[in-house]
């Protein structure tokens, strides 16, 4: 019954590792926002990033698909390996990388276009469809994966911005999966949604983990506990604790983690 509490379970199952971060530092000018982070993120698993505001969750998440490249003062050091390949190597095209490592943001941000075009955009620019029939197929498949097909199939020409907040977020998830990514990064995807829409997105996340590695930043402890199998707790730019979600929420090793998840001042 006694479970061995191994040191930060890095490299638990080498076969299953999607992302490997080694000694990762992120700076915004002089601000050292991510300090010495080492972590293995698993495939077909939902990993939650939790921690107080400003601890670096979004910064680290953005470093996984090089979104930080778009911030001029931002500098990333260390190695981030996706399937063993360095994503920051010169030959890697960030646009291709982002097709492989999709991202969903806090505020649903559909393009001001039709529902159909919102989904078709990515596959078009990445040349994933040879003709209209193939594109139709991708659009339907993606909307189904986004668990929104039944709600929009009769109005694919309507603007995506006309959907409810929860529908927009599922549309954005459908858009992210349309380019056949391997990883989905989600930064507080439910914080603008009501409880029902949140439950629908959580249910979708649970389905997505069969096909993808999903990383979700969330402010809701309950959400992290509900949707994830692994949880990483960040504090002041450090990855303090990374373990099975059940362990983090029943018996965390670090007092900083415990203070945070139990709502203590600490």
């Amino acid at each position, binding site marked *: *019954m*006694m*479970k061995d509490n191994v040191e930060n379970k890095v490299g638990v199952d080498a076969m299953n590792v999607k992302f490997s971060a080694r000694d990762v530092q992120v700076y915004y000018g002089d601000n050292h926002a991510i300090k010495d982070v080492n972590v293995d993120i698993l495939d077909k698993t939902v990993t939650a990033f939790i921690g107080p505001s400003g601890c670096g969750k979004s910064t680290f998440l953005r470093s996984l698909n090089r979104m930080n490249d778009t911030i001029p003062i931002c500098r990333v050091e260390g190695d981030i390996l996706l399937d063993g390949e360095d994503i920051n190597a010169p030959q890697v095209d960030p646009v291709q990388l982002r097709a492989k490592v999709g991202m969903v943001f806090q505020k649903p941000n559909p393009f001001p276009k039709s529902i159909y075009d919102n989904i078709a955009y990515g596959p078009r620019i990445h040349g994933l469809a040879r003709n209209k029939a193939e594109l139709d197929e991708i659009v339907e498949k993606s909307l189904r994966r986004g668990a929104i097909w039944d709600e929009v199939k009769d109005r694919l020409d309507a603007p995506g911005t006309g959907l409810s907040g929860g529908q927009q977020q599922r549309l954005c998830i459908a858009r992210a999966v349309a380019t056949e990514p391997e990883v989905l990064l989600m930064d507080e995807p439910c914080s603008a949604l009501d409880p029902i829409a949140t439950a629908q997105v959580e249910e979708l996340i649970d389905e997505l983990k069969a096909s993808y590695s999903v990383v979700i930043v969330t402010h809701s*402890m*309950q959400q992290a*506990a509900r949707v994830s199998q692994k949880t990483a707790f960040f504090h002041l730019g450090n990855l303090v604790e990374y373990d099975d979600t059940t362990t983090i*929420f*029943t*018996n*965390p090793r670090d*007092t900083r983690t*415990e*203070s945070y*998840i*139990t*709502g*203590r*001042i*600490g």
Partner: protein
Amino acid sequence: MNDPHIAKAFDRDLEAIQALVMKMGGLVEEAIREAAKSLKTRDTERAEKVRQGDRKIDELEDLINTQCAQLLAIRQPAATDLRTVLTVMKIAGNLERIGDYAKNIAKRTEVLSHMQPIEGASSAIRRMSKEVEAMLSDALDSYIRRDATVGEDVRHRDLEVDQMYNALFREFLTFMMEDPRNITACMHLHFIAKNIERMGDHVTSIADQVIYLSTGQFPDDQRPKDNQSIYKVEGFEEADE
């Protein structure tokens, strides 16, 4: 984790349910003591008070369960907070059972008071009950101090209680064989001894909860068992766990 919660009401709620468990523990310790004393002094009035007092113990368990359910629903506790709520509920259940055993002793005391006393029995039972009462008191203290080491100690002392039970069992058997007129009284006394032995098991379970609360893990070894017991009686082996 002694830091206060940001939500002060959370701290108050957690403290309140723990205070209720301690109150319940105090009543149960008293019930054990009073039941054994009433047996020793053949005091039926005292025994009746123990029987009446069990209602209060049952009510406290209900109250604790209700408050724990509310706290789970409203606060969604995690880590130490979660373990506190879980162990409080379990311990309240153990205390309620111990209370029932004390009540049963009191019932039998009333029956026994009309019978010829069995020499030495009530003193031996009182010694046994004193040990269990002390174990309970130590287990509850260690709960408040979140001290896992006492848990280990309690588990060992429970072995001695088992041995006392086995010794008494053998003694009663002898009395009954010597004079069949002793059978009714000895059967009651045997059930009383058995009740106290079961109380010891519940105290051990409380000690396990203290270990879980303070370490996050249950003791994984089986309770140490005395297999070489010289008191073994064919077909009536030592106390079950």
